[in-house]
């Protein structure tokens, strides 16, 4: 069991997401930064399917009643037990010892995984929290004093000290053009892939708003269509929105490009006021940049 002693601004239970329910209008939820989340599970000796805690607004602190391996990931995070340890490292938490998760002004989403995983029942196939519809086994932000059961830990002390190299956060995300790129006026797509946007403070788990450069929007109305995380909608005002884990399952704004899954965290972790650029890649080989032919 863990007992939350300091809950941050908003901490929720997340697992890899609630797939298979989009046709009921239910968003996937899951982590805003899937790469950091998966790393936290791996470092804590959890399975891919286990649940961990996503925290916005550090510090976040807790105590375990037994010995656990703890892993904290995210952008610019660190963890303190008796001594401070860098993030992205497996840490041994002793019974009763307070574990404090700290960040900096650049930190947005931090992940806290514990060996054994958070033991809550699945709701509609997932332990992920979707706050707008109060969905999930714990459909509210965590508060100080909350006690959460943990699964049986299979990770031993020998994993403590293991590290995963964090991605280089900051400023760039790879994206595939479209699916509605052909509906935009000439020049909109090249504007999008050459612009330096600024991240708006009005950004959350549903999406990140970009300001600073306007992208000429599509003129024709579009019939509402299905959506995946990473879709970059351009509303009539020309300020793009990159949709994240809590995105609506359908939407009516034309989508100029779609951020690849590996880089959703680059968008989610961009701090308000920071710059963000998009690098055009091909969908069949998204890790390689596309050579622009003009």
């Amino acid at each position, binding site marked *: 069991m863990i007992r939350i002693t300091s809950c941050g601004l908003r901490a929720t239970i997340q697992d890899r997401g609630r797939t298979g329910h989009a046709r009921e209008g239910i968003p996937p939820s899951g982590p805003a930064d899937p790469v950091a989340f998966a790393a936290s599970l791996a470092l804590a000796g959890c399975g891919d399917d286990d649940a961990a805690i996503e925290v916005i607004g550090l510090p976040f602190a807790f105590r375990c009643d037994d010995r656990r391996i703890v892993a904290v990931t995210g952008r610019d995070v660190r963890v303190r037990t008796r001594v401070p340890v860098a993030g992205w490292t497996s840490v041994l938490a002793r019974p009763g010892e307070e574990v404090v998760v700290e960040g900096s002004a650049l930190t947005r989403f931090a992940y806290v995984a514990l060996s054994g995983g958070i033991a809550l029942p699945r709701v509609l196939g997932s332990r992920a929290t979707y706050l707008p519809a109060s969905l999930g086994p714990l459909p509210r932000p965590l508060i100080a004093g909350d006690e959460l059961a943990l699964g049986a830990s299979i990770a031993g002390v020998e994993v403590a000290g293991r590290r995963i190299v964090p991605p280089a956060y900051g400023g760039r995300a790879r994206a595939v053009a*479209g699916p509605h790129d052909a509906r935009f006026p000439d020049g909109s797509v090249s504007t999008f892939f050459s612009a330096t946007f600024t991240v708006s403070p009005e950004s959350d788990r549903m999406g990140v708003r970009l300001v600073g450069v306007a992208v000429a929007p599509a003129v024709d109305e579009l019939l509402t269509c299905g959506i995946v995380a990473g879709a970059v909608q351009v509303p009539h005002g020309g300020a793009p929105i990159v949709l994240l884990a809590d995105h609506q399952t359908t939407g009516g704004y034309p989508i100029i490009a779609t951020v690849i899954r590996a880089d959703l965290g680059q968008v989610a972790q961009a701090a308000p006021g920071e710059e963000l650029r998009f690098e055009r890649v091909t969908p069949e080989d998204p890790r390689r940049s596309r050579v622009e032919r003009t």
Partner: protein
Amino acid sequence: MTVRPFGDRAFLIELEQRIDPSIIDAARAVADAWERRGLGEAIPAYASVVVTFDPARTLWKDAAAAAEALASAPPGAASAVAGRLIEIPTVYDGPDLAETATRSGLSTTELVALHSDRDYRAFFLGFMPGLAYCGMLDPRIDAPRLASPRPRVPAGSVAIANGQTIVYPVDSPGGWRLIGRTDLKVFDPAQDPAALIRAGDRLRFVPR
């Protein structure tokens, strides 16, 4: 039908750009066929389907070939699963009922009669959990959305706008015109499926 890449793990299959029950059924049939292949989930809407796959299990080029094959030989609207009839007991006392009737040159009684005397098709679900877009409205009671959305619309509100009618599944912001309310729970996470209405169902609003 056209197939376009949608990021690195999905495709958008577009049928046409108009709202028509037969196109909606055809889109749903395409989504069903994709999900039967077991590559990933599919999200149908008015005239398009998003089909997803997991690059850890399926190569992009194989998923692309499967999407192209489906688009070139679609299963057709007739193979869409037939819906059920769902009755929605409705108290017609919404805050926008009188104004919406007046702008259509109708009494509230006439508006209620025109809303409740036909069966609607559930086109697809989206926007929020359990929200089914249903249509079409009698053109005589059609009206645009409100100029400024309400910050909070209670779950169970029955609303109309843009030729369609919906039941709000959860408390949420909303810009549709509220003409009534139902006690029926159209979204209940304790149930699986959590959404009462499925695409393809018919809806009948029964005045209470």
